[in-house]
């Protein structure tokens, strides 16, 4: 009985821990959000920018795309234009300073990393990382 109770508690705590990391619950630190993902990578997004982006889309899944070569407004405009045509994407934010693009998807199962990389490449830029932050 004691062992069963201990096993149950251990299983429950592991599930809670895993859920916390899988869905990417975030904490803010000195203006940035540092989120330890399950793969060990750290998500580094400007906290204020992220909060502003999240207004009105609380139930969306957010994709953070790290882009190389996005040094001017014209490049950024091309990316925004491309993803604004994608009906699966409900909101877009392009951050020139950090080279990151935030994409909000209302349906998590519609996220296609290969398609995102292809769209970025078609704009003449390179994707270095894609991270998905759960609802």
């Amino acid at each position, binding site marked *: 009985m004691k062992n069963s109770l201990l096993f149950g508690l251990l299983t429950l705590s592991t599930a809670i821990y895993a859920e916390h990391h899988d869905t990417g619950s975030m904490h803010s630190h000195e203006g940035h959000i540092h989120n330890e993902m399950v793969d060990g990578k750290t998500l580094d997004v400007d906290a204020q920018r992220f909060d502003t982006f999240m207004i009105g889309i609380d139930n969306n899944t957010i994709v953070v795309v790290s882009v190389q070569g996005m*040094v*001017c*407004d014209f*490049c950024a405009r091309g990316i925004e234009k491309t993803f604004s045509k994608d009906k699966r994407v409900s909101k877009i934010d392009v951050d020139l300073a950090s080279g990151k693009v935030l994409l909000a998807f209302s349906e998590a199962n519609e996220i296609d990393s290969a398609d995102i990389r292809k769209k970025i490449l*078609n704009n003449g830029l390179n994707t270095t990382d894609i991270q998905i932050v759960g609802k």
Partner: protein
Amino acid sequence: MINSSSLADNIYWHYTPNINYSVGLDYQKDKVSNDYFPSARFTYLINRKNTEKSQRNLYFKTGVGLNNSNNHFYSLAGDWETRRFFTSFSVKQSSGAGYDMFEQSAKVGVAPYLGDYGDLHTWLMLETKKNDLDNKQITYPLLRLFKGGALIEMSYHKKTDWDVHLMYRF
């Protein structure tokens, strides 16, 4: 794209089917002869290198007159830019009615502030040019402003007077 200088006015339209090349039409009015020179243009991206903070490009460009194919040019142009600094170069061989000209130019620029996406972006630049017809090098300041899809570039030199360049990207 519209360009106006003391020698000619140009209007240039180009379409980029993919990042590797673009095709375009240029319509030039020569202010000296008052003649019109329509031409077809082709630009090919030879190489692009993206890094986290920079982008470098190398292009081959060519154009041919639609009225007279003896009017043509080909050039090699490159640029490297970060959000703060910009450099570019161009070498161009042109042939027209009774002349051949080789022109070289280079540009350096700095952004006095780093704007966010959608802000007004400003570049302070210096451009230098030399061609083998008059063999004189001219260097002049240039102001580039852009916001959204619109770009304006203005430069002045006592020899060439004002040069204004407008571009809108759809």
